[in-house]
C-alpha cells in the first residue's frame, strides 16, 4: 500500500468500513461482558498476512480514533520489523499519533509481551493472538472445545499440567501459560512469557485479544481476576535470571538473550525497549 492511500480517500478511516467496525465493536462488547469467552466474529481479510497480527489490527482499527495515541510492540520492542510495519499501517490509514512511551499511549497493540511499565486506567492493551483456544493442543476439534468451555469441563488441562509435573517435576510451560479468568473461563493469554501473566491480574487497563485467522475476540475487563493455573503443592512461578540487563542494569524485567560472538558469549538485555531506554536516559542526563 502506498503511503497516501488513506489520505486520498481510497480506503475508509482506519481501513475497515464502518459496518465492519460496528460488527467488531459488538463482538468486543460481548467479549467484555463475558470475560475470557471467545466470541466468534466475521474477521476480514487484511492487507497484512494471517498470523502477523490481523486479529489485533482489526481490533485496533475498530476502536481507534484521531484522538488516540498508538504504541505497537513486538517481543516487547517498538522497533522490531513487524511492529514498525503495523505502526506505519495505522499512521497511514488512521492518521493517528504514535509513541513508544508506554504511559503516553491510549492503545497499545502487542505481540508476545506486556509492557514492564504498569498500565493505568483508560489504557487499552490489544493482543495479537495466533491460537485463541487454550485447549487446542489437547483437543484439536473446535466443536469439542466449545462444549468443554460451555460445561467448564477443564479436566484435560489439569491432567496435562499434572503430567508435566509427573514427568519433569514442574510445569514445563514457558509461554502461553493458561489462565483462569474471573473464575469461569480458561483463557490463552496469547504467547506472552509466563513472566507477564501476573500483570494481567486485576490490571486497571482493558485487555482485548484478537485472533484474525481463527476469527475470535476475547477480553479481560479492568480489575478482573486472572489466575495462572497451578496446584497447591506446585504454585505458579515466573522466569528469573541470574544476570541483569547489560544496558540498564534492571534486575526485574524480562531479559532477551543474544549471542554476541563465535564462542557463544551471551548478552542479556531488556526485551521492553521503552522501559530499558527510559531507565538509561535519566542516568545519562545526570552524568
Amino acid at each position, binding site marked *: 500500500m502506498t503511503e497516501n492511500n488513506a489520505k486520498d480517500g481510497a*480506503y*475508509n478511516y482506519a*481501513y475497515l*468500513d464502518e459496518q465492519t467496525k460496528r460488527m467488531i465493536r459488538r463482538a468486543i462488547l460481548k467479549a467484555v461482558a463475558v470475560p475470557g469467552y471467545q466470541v*466468534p*466474529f*466475521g474477521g*476480514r*481479510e*487484511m*492487507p497484512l*498476512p*494471517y*498470523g*502477523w497480527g*490481523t486479529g489485533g489490527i482489526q481490533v485496533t482499527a475498530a476502536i481507534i480514533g484521531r484522538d488516540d495515541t498508538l504504541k505497537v510492540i*513486538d*517481543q*516487547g*520492542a517498538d*522497533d*522490531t*520489523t*513487524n511492529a*514498525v*510495519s503495523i505502526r*506505519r499501517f495505522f499512521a497511514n490509514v488512521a492518521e493517528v499519533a504514535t509513541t513508544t512511551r508506554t504511559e503516553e499511549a491510549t492503545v497499545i497493540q502487542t*505481540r*508476545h509481551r506486556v509492557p514492564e511499565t504498569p498500565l493505568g486506567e483508560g489504557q487499552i492493551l490489544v493482543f495479537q493472538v*495466533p491460537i485463541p483456544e487454550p485447549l487446542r493442543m489437547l483437543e484439536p*476439534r*473446535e*466443536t469439542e472445545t466449545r462444549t468443554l468451555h460451555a460445561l467448564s469441563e477443564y479436566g484435560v488441562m489439569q491432567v496435562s499440567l499434572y503430567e508435566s509435573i509427573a514427568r519433569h*517435576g*514442574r510445569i*514445563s*510451560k*514457558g*509461554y502461553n501459560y493458561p489462565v483462569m479468568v474471573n473464575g469461569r473461563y480458561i483463557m490463552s493469554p496469547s*504467547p*506472552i*512469557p*509466563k*513472566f507477564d501473566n501476573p500483570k494481567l491480574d486485576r490490571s486497571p487497563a482493558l485487555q482485548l485479544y484478537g485472533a484474525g*485467522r481463527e*476469527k*475470535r475476540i476475547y477480553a479481560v475487563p479492568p480489575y478482573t481476576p486472572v489466575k495462572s493455573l497451578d496446584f497447591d503443592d506446585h504454585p505458579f512461578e515466573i*522466569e*528469573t*535470571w541470574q544476570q541483569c540487563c547489560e*544496558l540498564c542494569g534492571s534486575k526485574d524485567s*524480562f*531479559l*532477551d*538473550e*543474544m549471542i*554476541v560472538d563465535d564462542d557463544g558469549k551471551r*548478552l542479556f*538485555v531488556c*526485551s521492553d525497549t521503552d522501559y530499558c531506554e527510559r531507565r538509561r536516559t535519566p542516568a545519562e542526563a545526570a552524568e
Partner: protein
Amino acid sequence: MYVAVKGGETAIAHSLDLLADKRRGDRGVAELTLEQIGQQLGLAVDRVMTEGSCYDRSLAALAIKQARGDLIEAIFLLRAYRTTLPRFGDSLPLDTGAMVAERRISSTFKDVPGGQVLGPTYDYTHRLLDFSLAADGERPAAPTAPADTNRTLPRVGDILEREGMLEPPPQGLQSDGASEDLTRQPLTLPASRPVRLQNLARGDEGFLLALGYSTQRGYGNNHPFVGEIRYGHVPVAFVPEELGFAIEIAEIDVTECEMVNQFAGSHDVPPQFTRGYGLAFGHSERKAMSMALVDRALRAEELSESATSPAQDEEFVLAHSDNVEASGFVQHLKLPHYVDFQSELVVVRALRAEVEARHRQAALDQAAE
C-alpha cells in the same frame, strides 16, 4: 550488536525497494502488460479469481504481475482488495443450464443431448515441449463456428434424476433467499452445505486435489463418475430493489463439474446415485473436479456413511483449505519469537540442571558406597 535488531524502519524501506526492483527484473526486457497476462496466462488469472473470490480479470492480472507470478500471493492481494468493496446485494443463482458452453463432456454416457463438445483442452495434447513457442511464431487462428446461443444443454444429472436413478440436488443447493456469506461471518461447525461449498470454492486447489485424490485411493472412496463437466459463459442476474425485476449485470466464465457417485442405499432408501458438486471461475477443471469429490466426501454423515478419512472430516477440511490463512500462519514463523524462545530456554535449562544435579548426586552416592 544490539543495533542489529533495531533500525527496522529503514530496513523495511530498503527491502520494499529491492522487491520492486526484483519484480521488474532486467530493464532491457519489455515489461509485462496486464493484457498479456490476461490473454496469455489466462488459466493463472482464472485460479486467482476463483480462490480470490473476485471475478475481475484485470485485477487478477494486476495481482499476478505484482506477485511476480506467485499465485497464492496474488490470491491474497485480490482478497485483501475484495474485502474493502461495498456489497450491494446477492445476485440470483447462476443458471448454468443456460450456459453458452465452449466445452461440455460427460463420461457416464457415450452421447448426451447437446453432444460431447471437447473445446479447448490440454487432455489430448502430447506433453512435448513446443519449441516453436520459444521462437516468435504467430499461429493461424483456429477455425470456429459461430456460437449457437439457442442451443441448450440439458444437464446429464437432470436426465438421471427424472428416472429416479440420481438423488435430487441436496438440501441447501437451492437458494432460500437468506444466503450465508463466509467472507462476512465466521465459519461455524457443523456448516451448512452452501457454506461448505463456499469454503471449497475458495479453497486451495492443491489441497483439494490431494484430498480428492485420497478418496480415490481408498481414504473415503465414493466411486465417482464425471456426470458432466461444462465450461462457458453464463449471465449474472440481479434484482435491484428499486426495480423489482431481474436485470442482467454481467456475463462470466465458469467451469462446473457434477460428479455422480455410487451410493449403496440404506435401510429406507433404495440404491441410488448421489451428487458431488464443483464450480470455479474461468476454466478450472482440476479445481472443479477436486471440489466435487471433496463435496461428496463431506456428505458422508448426511448419507449415513462411516466418516473415517481426512476428506470426510468436515472440520479438518474446512479449517485447513484456505491457502491465504495457511500461508500466513506457516510463514509467521519468520517473525521474531525471541521472547517465547527465551522462556523455553529458561525452562529447558532449569530442567537440564535438575537432571544433571541428580546424576551428580547419584555418582557421589555410588562413590560413597
